[in-house]
């Protein structure tokens, strides 16, 4: 009885120690593909994809639970890159329906509470206490975090304005 208890204890301790060290020295650093995908994502942790941040989104992408078109700030180019990386075909139809939007501060309603720019993941809103805030359109990713933060509902989402700089010819519509 005593010999059995002793031998099992010794065995358990030895194997436990070995396993413990193995866990420490032979640790797998997550899925390397996930890290690569996360590197490709914008990293603004905006949550527009429905995941809490870019890292969980990358995990879902690798697991095949999320479509490559999940990232609105990344847009079409990112979707194509992701599809290329993951070896899937990108269905861009979902992306084309969703027009890229940017935030806009209605100056007559803004009270200068500073809440919106504290939430902005890309510092795209400038302003200070009791001063009207303004959005830098080029830096805005359209994550809508500021919309929820505003106490006077003065932040609105507008489509990106078309100018001579970003206009280009539409695709010719022909059957052939």
């Amino acid at each position, binding site marked *: 009885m005593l010999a059995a208890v002793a031998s099992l204890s010794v065995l358990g301790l030895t194997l436990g120690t070995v396993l413990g060290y193995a866990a420490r020295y032979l640790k797998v650093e997550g899925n390397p593909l996930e890290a690569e995908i996360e590197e490709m994502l914008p990293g603004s942790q905006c949550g527009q994809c429905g995941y809490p941040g870019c890292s969980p989104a990358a995990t879902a992408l690798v697991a095949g639970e999320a479509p490559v078109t999940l990232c609105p700030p990344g847009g079409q180019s990112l979707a194509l890159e992701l599809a290329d990386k993951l070896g899937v075909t990108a269905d861009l139809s979902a992306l084309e329906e969703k027009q890229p939007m940017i935030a806009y501060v209605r100056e007559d309603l803004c009270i200068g509470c500073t809440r919106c720019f504290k939430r902005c993941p*890309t510092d795209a809103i400038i302003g200070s206490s009791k001063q009207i805030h303004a959005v830098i359109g080029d830096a805005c990713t359209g994550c809508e975090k500021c919309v929820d933060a505003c106490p006077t509902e003065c932040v609105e989402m507008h489509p990106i304005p078309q100018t001579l700089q970003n206009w280009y010819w539409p*695709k010719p519509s*022909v059957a052939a």
Partner: protein
Amino acid sequence: MRSSAFKLFRIRGGVHPEGRKQDTCGQPIRELPMPALLRIPLQQHIGAPAQPEVRRGDRVLKGQLLATSQGLISAPVHAPTSGVIKSIGKFPAPHASGLPVRTITLEPDGEDRWIDLDPQATPLHLEPDDIAERVAAAGIVGMGGATFPSAVKLGLRERFELHTLVINAAECEPYLTCDDRLMRERAHEIIDGIRITLHGLQVNKALVAIENNKPEAIAAMTEAARAFDEITIVAVPVRYPMGSEKHLVQTLTGKETPARSLTADIGIVVHNVATVRAIGEAVRFGRPLISRVVTVGGGAVHEPGNLQVPIGAPVEALIEACGGLREEPAKLLSGGPMMGQPLPELRVPVVKGTSGILALTTAEVASKPTMPCIRCASCVDVCPCGLLPLEMANRARNADLQGAADFGLMDCVSCGSCSYVCPAHIPLVQYFNYAKGALVEQQRAKHKQEETKRLAAARAERMERLAAAKREAMAKRKAEMAAKKAREAEAAQAAEADDAATEPTDAPVNKLAEPQVGT
């Protein structure tokens, strides 16, 4: 000097569209009657829009600065006549999109009074940099249609070793005759402009390339250039797109410009013939670019002709001055029929790059239904850039932009020769224009994403720094509190010791004094 024995080189491809210049090439340039309102867009050039210098209600004189250039690649805008600024707002651009752009509206007062100019009697004694400065201040841009600021081109001599100035007077687009008329009527002014430009570039050889179908212009220019050995008038064969600068240079010198680089890389600068005339006017007389010659043509116009038009005149005023419309045009174009831009409406203004206004009838447009590609390779034969239009169009149509780019999409000059010859009437060049825009859009999106990443990282780093600073402050305060407590404890001990040693009457004073030192 005219060189009849000038050795020319053959370029590949090209087409021979019907010229249709006979309606306007015999008509002398007429002055357009001053319209009731001029609308002057702040962006009539490639680069950053100009910044207004005047306010609503201001009185301005002819040639007065209305808006200054912004940044390195930009051009100022001047008042085409004297009058009152009615407004500074948005107005549809003379562009296929018809999008509104910032525009100054000027109401002419009819006096047409000039501002004091700064003429230069001896422009050839100016420093080359002064010439570039005067050209920049005059708001001169490429008047062939590309509207690239000319002063930037004059500055190329600092970065490249230049040896030849080529004057592009090919005017290969059908219908257009504005450069032809300009050469017939103002040859001496053009030659003067060429000499000033040569001096500005510090180059001593100029080639003026004129297509064979303009014998009167060749004769007039040869006559005007007779006294100047450095200027050679060269008659080049009629073939579209002879007026594409890279192909013109290749015809004249046999040298091909490397892909996606400038003709300056092989030592040559190309200017349009109307542009050098404007350079001459600006440097010798101090006159800014405020008007240009425009061909008004097309079967739907009653009396086609060439007009000297103030910048900002509405297109409808030009058509009215040419007898109005014979019928509703099937297409209204700015520029030639091969590369011109459709205009959204008749109210849009003439800008510095408007070489022609064409109102084409249904018979002239002759659009036919698109048929499937039969892979006849006609487009490959005519492509002056040596590309495979059918393969590129195939990929552009199937949203494979990268595939199209791999076939050389970015080397396409959008001349439209492929669409012109396609027996299946496939809108080839239209596919390329779309695909180029979409590719640029993709690059912009990618750039934005990289910037987003940088901004997010910068924010995370800042947040981390803030948190660290907070932690540090907390730790410092804790340490101070601990130190204070320790001192108090020490003081209390010392006081107790004192209590024991000294008279009891002193003790309260000491106790009160000690903590104050600590705070």
